[in-house]
């Protein structure tokens, strides 16, 4: 089976609701997987695609809100859309504060759900993109030699080449060479970009 470009997970203990939601997702061309309980969802192997979770608050065993907490603890960053047959304000507030995308009470307008799903998927996409970018940056950084890393740190600190050479007790040329290497490897077009990268990596600290 080819990798889908997005995925919707549905967790609800009510069979009819599961079927209905599955029907709905498929009818709009979304890939959907349904689970009867939170445990089933956690145990499953999730494909590495943008995804979101449509989650009923009331579940047998682990409740929806508990699942949200668990996922946060396990750093599973799938955005969650809560649905429920009856919800009260405290429940809603708790869910949103914990980072849910949306909180819908049945019977909700289908469009509302679909919009929320789109929003969630977008979020997930951008999150994933961001993560991917971060990862690449890290890879690049890892490819630097230790000397190059030192240079990068100093460059990012705003030191001139002469000063860097003085710091590192090496010649300016060597510094320039290293600097060039860093720029190459990191793929930064300008020092400003390098600085941004440094911040992202968390190495922009000034001695």
């Amino acid at each position, binding site marked *: 089976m080819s990798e889908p470009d997005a995925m919707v997970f549905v967790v609800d*203990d*009510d069979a*009819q*609701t599961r*079927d*209905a*939601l599955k*029907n*709905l997702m*498929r*009818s*709009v*061309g979304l890939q959907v997987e349904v689970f009867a309980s939170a445990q089933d969802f956690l145990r499953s192997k999730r494909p590495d695609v943008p995804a979101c979770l449509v989650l009923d608050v*009331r*579940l*047998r065993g682990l*409740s929806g809100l508990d699942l949200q907490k668990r996922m946060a603890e396990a750093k599973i960053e799938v955005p969650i859309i809560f*649905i*429920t*047959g*009856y919800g009260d304000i405290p429940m809603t507030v708790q869910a949103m504060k914990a980072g849910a995308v949306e909180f819908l*009470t*049945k*019977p*909700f*307008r*289908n*469009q509302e*759900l*679909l919009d929320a799903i789109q929003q969630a998927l977008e979020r997930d996409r951008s999150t994933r993109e961001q993560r991917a970018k971060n990862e690449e940056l890290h890879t690049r950084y890892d490819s630097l030699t230790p000397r190059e890393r030192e240079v990068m740190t100093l460059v990012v600190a705003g030191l001139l080449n002469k000063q860097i050479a003085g710091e590192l007790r090496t010649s300016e040329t060597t510094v320039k060479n290293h600097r060039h290497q860093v720029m190459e490897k990191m793929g930064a077009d300008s020092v400003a970009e390098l600085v941004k990268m440094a911040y992202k990596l968390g190495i922009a600290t000034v001695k």
Partner: protein
Amino acid sequence: MRDPAPRQSGAEQISRIRPSLPYAHTALIALLVCAGYYLGAELAFMLRIPSTRSAIIWVPNAVLLAVLLLTPPRTWAIWFLAALPAHLVAQSRDGGFVLVLLYPFFANVAQVIIAAMGLRCLAAAPPRFNILRDMTLFVLIAAITAPALISFLAAWLFVSVGWETDFWLVSRGRFLNNMTTGLTVAPLILMAAESGLAGLRRRRGQRYVEFALLAVGLGGTLYLTHTWTTVGAGSIPLQLYAPLPFLLWAAVRFGPGGLCLFLLVVAAHAISGTISGRGPYVAQTPAENVLTLQISLAVLAIPLMFVAALIGERRKKEEALRESEERFRWMGDAIPDVIWFTALEPEKILYVSPSFERIWGLPVEDLYRNPRLWTETILPEDRDHVNKTFARWIAGEKVNYHDIEYRIIQPNGAIRWIHERGVLRLNDQGKPYLASGISTDITERKQAEQRLIVQHTVTQMLATAATLEEVTPKILQAVCKCLVWDLGELWCTDRAAGVLRWVEVWHKESIEAPQFVATSRDRTFMPGIGLPGRVWSSREPAYIPDVVQDSNFRRASIAAREGLHAAFGFPILLGSEVVGVMDFFSQDIRQPDQDLLDMMATIGSQIGQFIERKRAEEAFHTAQMELAHVTRVATLGEMTASIAHEINQPLGAFVNNAGACLSWLDAENLEEARNSVALMMDDAQRASEIITRIRALVKKAPPQKDWLEINQTIREVIALAQSEVQRNHIALETQLSDDMPLVFADRIQLQQVMLNLMMNAIEAMIQVTGPRELLISSEADDSKGVVVVVRDSGPGLDSKSLERLFEPFYTTKPQGMGMGLAICRSIVQAHGGRLWATTNRDRGASFHFSLPTGEELA
């Protein structure tokens, strides 16, 4: 037979009357003694034959004896001292030394002492001359023994001293002298001293005449015989036996007193004759004459005295008998009960007391004439039993004591209750020959008893009856049977139509009054018309002794034809309103009985109270159902959250599927579109089911019982409460056993019970931390039927709560009404089961309810 109590001596009686003057009257008596002695001595000397020195009768001895017998021994010395001077003075005419004079005195004193002591010990003092025994003893002791003893003793002394020579003569002389005195004078003096002149005055005029006649007769006889004396030794003197009839007459008619008097007269006459040389006692020597005289007198006196005593005794007995009869008759007349005596073979009434007339209403002569009358007056129902019992009794079968109750009819038709007790007299062979007894009229008591019985019976009936219709015929029957009325009816007020309507009747089996009952059935009564109408408008009981005579009684002619006479009615009062009337009829004419009416009025209000109670019970039942309904709704209110959730599920699914369907249609995928629609229909169906279930719970239907599978009901309720269970993170486990017998119950009500128990369990568990485990189990129990247990892991219950849990308005919830468990319990109990709570050993509480299965109901 001896009189039991000895009478007291006159002196003792006198001393009791005048205790404060003992010395005064002692002196008086002493004086009398002295005077009497002297006079007596003079009299004796007068009656002495001149040539002899001894008296024919020595009166002073009689005086002494009399006084000794009338006074206590401690005073005797006084009397002797008083008599001594008299003796000395009297005897001094003969001359002689003082010592010589004293000698006979001591002898006399000794004699009277012996006589008196003897009599005191053996008889009474003073002796009663109308008792044979006393008379006999007197004669023996005072007239014979004492004189004999002393005479012999004295004579021996005289002879030995030398004053006299002929022992026998002296002794005999003295003896006969004293004997004669004792037989004639002594009794007279004693009787005179005792009864006194007062006794003479008590006699009736008739007796005076008789006395006078007797006196004249005797006097005449003596005079006549006086002149006709035949002189000659050996011939029986006329003088002797001529006075005999008169003396007999005196003995019979005037007793010992009269006899002694006339005897004395005869003796005096004889003595005077002898002294003057006339009469039969002059033939021999003076001494011998005296002897003859004395013997004659004695021979005359002794038998006559005995006759007098006998007759006196008999007269006393007759007197006593007459008095006894008087008393008996008085008692018989006075006692309100009937005392009777019957001889058994042949059957003859010997005596029936006058109360018979009052109680039986018949003259006593009728019963004497016809002994069988007493059986004929017995009420037919009781006659058999009474006759049988009586026959067995006189046959000697049962006990010797007969105790029976029966009813009689008086001529005027009234019935009275008799309580009869009897005893039998057996002859020597042990066979009864005489029966006697007492019959008491216990009508009032019996009536009171019966009224109590009716009251008690009716009260019991009303306490245990379920409906009015069930109890009224029983009441009619009870009143008729216990109080002996023949027919009872119940009428009921129809307020709308303003009349009394006939409801029902009860009558004794032996009574047939078909027409009366038939007309009554169709009748209605307006207020004030007829007996029921009268009772209705007056709100008071009413009594008619004879309806045939009553102008207001509508059914009089029919009643007359069918033989119904007495009637009474009473109202059934509910507060102050008459809701019905009961009336009763009898074939007898009966007099009004206020006690009966009072009791009936009480029963009427008791029935009214019963009606009120039943209405209150019904109202309560209705209110309970209302409350059950309200609580159902309230419980539902608590479940709104869950219900909303329940319904929103299918609705949400429905909407989702609808949306999907539209999308599918856009994508022109008809297959999927159709599927979607199918799913939508399912969703709608489910929503509708939930609505139906909820509606059913809210609907106010009366219990509709059916044969149910309890597990099914439990599952339905679990489904209903599912969301609640999940919302509160409760682990629900069921252990429903297979092969459960069916129960006959109302589904909705059972669901309500289950729901309530589950909600309570859930709420209990929410309050505590820790695992929330709800266990619902069901099993079949041999004795109890089906048992369902709802067990939670909440805080549990303490023993105090366990008791109070099922009370209405007891709740531990701040918002709770406290009715849930009370209503559950009443539902379960209405199904014949039990609902109870226990605390679990580890944690939490368990609620159990049992329902009877088919086997028990069958």
